């Protein structure tokens, strides 16, 4: 008797703390839920249909009521019916699903970009402004956010159920996903791809903030250096600036404004310069030689971390002119006696 109120309280607390349906906290979520309810309706329809047939026939034709079976061979009409109707319903599922997929995996052009690096077993988010977060992500509401993600080791998968988005984080390749949060609050981040021992510990929280709060948060948590500034340092310290100096006689192509352009490669193909291209070109330069240049760039495979690569990408991305490059060059040349000897890293 004494226990029951306690037990009751416990039960109530337990049940109220539990959830049966995820929150809809992004612009995608209602679309996802609509498809979900359609599919659910299909399932219920199918189940009711099959269940009704089974129940009805079981009652109507059970042995007591129908001692002798009547033979029926089949019916082409019926076969056609239950081939075509499910097929039609399934095709609707396909088209609807494809449209949604298209929506989720095609970021709008004006999306703000945040980098995410996954590794065993943590998420590292890097904002262009230089804010770094571990197992957390702050985003503004009402603004499309694109995540450019990469893994440093194995497959991970970045999932925010309340936003209904998820994308595999792949070793050696950028993948992207986007969302637009609608309601301020905190939401789970899960790593959903099995990635080893602490897979279930690779979780975090997204905090969706109002634009004002977000502004405040960015200012409070900046480390002082933006990603591009970090990239600029790397660009100089790895010696990239020696060749990609932007001058006419440089051994490497001019990188200012190259992001987003179409590039003619030495092997004849044309490529769009995006994050993935830049990253690949740093790691596997010989496959990405710009037309008119010699394949002399060494590979940086194994020399730069994924974070470093992100800095470099971000630097090149935001490089309207070569002014800063030349600045770094001047400072580095000034303390070297023979300017021509600088730069080239031995293969």
């Amino acid at each position, binding site marked *: 008797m004494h226990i029951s109120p306690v037990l009751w309280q416990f039960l109530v607390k337990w049940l109220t703390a539990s959830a049966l349906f995820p929150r809809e906290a992004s612009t995608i979520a209602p679309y996802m839920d609509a498809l979900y309810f359609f599919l659910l309706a299909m399932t219920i329809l199918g189940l009711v249909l099959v269940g009704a047939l089974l129940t009805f026939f079981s009652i109507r034709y059970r042995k007591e009521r129908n001692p002798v079976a009547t033979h029926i061979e089949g019916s082409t009409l019926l076969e056609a019916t239950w081939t075509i109707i499910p097929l039609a319903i399934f095709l609707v599922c396909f088209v609807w699903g494809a449209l949604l997929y298209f929506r989720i995996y095609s970021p709008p052009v004006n999306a703000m970009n945040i980098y995410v690096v996954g590794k065993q077993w943590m998420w590292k988010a890097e904002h262009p402004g230089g804010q770094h977060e571990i197992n957390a992500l702050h985003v503004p509401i009402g603004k499309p956010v694109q995540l450019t993600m990469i893994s440093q080791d194995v497959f991970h998968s970045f999932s925010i159920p*309340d936003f209904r988005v998820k994308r595999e984080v792949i070793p050696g390749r950028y993948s992207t996903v986007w969302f637009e949060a609608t309601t301020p609050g905190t939401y789970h981040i899960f790593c959903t791809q099995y990635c080893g021992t602490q897979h279930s510990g690779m979780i975090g929280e997204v905090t969706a903030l109002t634009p004002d709060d977000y502004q405040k948060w960015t200012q409070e948590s900046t480390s002082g250096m933006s990603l591009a500034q970090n990239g600029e340092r790397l660009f100089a310290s790895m010696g990239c600036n020696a060749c990609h100096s932007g001058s006419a006689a440089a051994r490497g192509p001019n990188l200012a404004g190259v992001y987003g352009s179409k590039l003619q490669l030495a092997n004849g193909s044309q490529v769009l310069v995006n994050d993935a291209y830049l990253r690949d070109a740093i790691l596997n330069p010989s496959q990405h030689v710009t037309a008119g240049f010699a394949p002399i760039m060494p590979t940086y495979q194994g020399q730069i971390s994924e974070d470093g690569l992100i800095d470099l990408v971000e630097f090149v991305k935001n490089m309207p002119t070569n002014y800063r490059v030349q600045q770094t060059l001047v400072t580095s040349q000034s303390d070297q006696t023979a300017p021509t000897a600088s730069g080239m890293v031995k293969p």
Partner: protein
Amino acid sequence: MSTSTTTILNLPDQATATLPKRNYLNAEHGLLSWLFTGDHKRIAMLYLFSITFFFFIGGAFAGLIRLELLTPQPDLVASDTYNKFFTMHGIIMIFLFLVPSVPATLGNFLIPIMLGAKDLAFPKINLLSWYLYMAGGTFTLAALVLGGVDTGWTFTTPLSTHYLNTHVITAATAIFIAGFSSIFTGLNFIVTIHRMRAPGMTWFRMPLFVWSNYAASILMVLGTPVLAIAIVLVALERTIGIGVFDPTKGGDPLLFQHLFWFYSHPAVYIMILPGMGVISEVISTFSRKRVFGYTAVAFSSVAIALFGFFVWAHHMFIMGVSNYSALVFSLLTMLVAVPSAIKIFNWAFTLQKGSLTFETPMLYAFGFMGLFTIGGLTGVFLGSLGMDIHLTETYFIVAHFHFVMVGGMLMAFLAGVHFWWPKMTGRMYPESLSKLAAVTTFIGFNLTFLPQFILGYLGMPRRYHSYPQEFQVLNVLSTAGATVLGVGYLLPMIYLGWSLKYGAIAGNNPWQATGLEWQIQSPPLTENFLVTPIMDHEAYDYEWLAHKTEQEVTTVG
């Protein structure tokens, strides 16, 4: 076991009935006579015991998984251990239980008899495949005893190749060997079905059970070797670091997934098709009618097998395959779902104008139809691209595949075991207890896995050792269900064992079914038939059965 009108059971007079003096069980004696047997029926029994053994090991792991998930905190075992639990659970259940379940036991036992043959085409290879199975099982147990594996049953690279130092190679060897066991079973079935049919047994007189096993065998023969090579490459990558799956060396980790799923998607149809065959037999027998649309059901098996090869990348929708090929694979996934729908409706309409009775196999078959419908239709959720983004790698998938594999195939397996138990052992199982077990599994099953759909939509990821607080209620339900389910599976173990000694004598044809296997004595003779039967009627011809004279009973031992 009453003889009221509610049953078709037709047992001989128990006071005088005896088991046939000569039958395959007592043809020879001693352990060696079993270990060196070439008789497909004995090999089937060997398989039955071995897969049951592995089922309970796999089930024990399921129990441990559910126990750990009772509370959100990672409190029962360490993360590594939990990861080993679900890996061993998956590997054992898939490769050592479900893939060989119906084909290697019921198929092995019945296909030659259903075709009117004395044995499978290659009895020695049949025995070899059991030994390979046991070797695979031994390696799995070795991996288990040495400390387990924690790759997940999917062996995702580069995790399995570079980041784990558990017994991956031992487990890989196990799967490689078990794979060859499955190849040889499939090969044997195909040859037998093509070459060993009795006179008059044309393709369209074959029982649908044979058709569906034929379709599954094609998948085994053509799909499994690709798994084998994928596994070999994983082992090489692990041992000498070859780099084909290693992104830092220029390899593509997704290549592994392509090869793996090229097998493993068809494998899910290897797992379901033979079960579908069982359902055809059971439904027909207990409604005393030919299966509605025999040809449609037969061809839909083949269609599933054929289309099954074109959809594998639906397991990789968000893993980095190109968006274009995701579209194509999603479309094809929708197509492959249709033949299953055809089957379900044909079975439902088989009941129409039948004379239905509800013995245990029929109850399991009803369970199959309901649960497979749910499982299959939730597969369509996953095949629908946009939906898959949210649902993939969550408990929704776990629920989906347990619905098709446990609710579908395992129910079908149990239906089949009960249905043919009198044929295999000569004795009946206890009817009311088995009905209780069927109902228990049905209830337990739904309690276990329905909450997981909700969990999945909430976003609870699979392979999670601990989870946020708010998921607990549903997880508790699921664990509770698993307990009920476990009881539901233990019951048959007990009463089937009991019936071996105390069950009622079944006689040749307790169900008054039409299949050739029911026209011979139970348990059958070593070579099944004294005289090669001549098939002069269609499958499921109850007219023929009614008018069959005693002489037409081809063998009485």
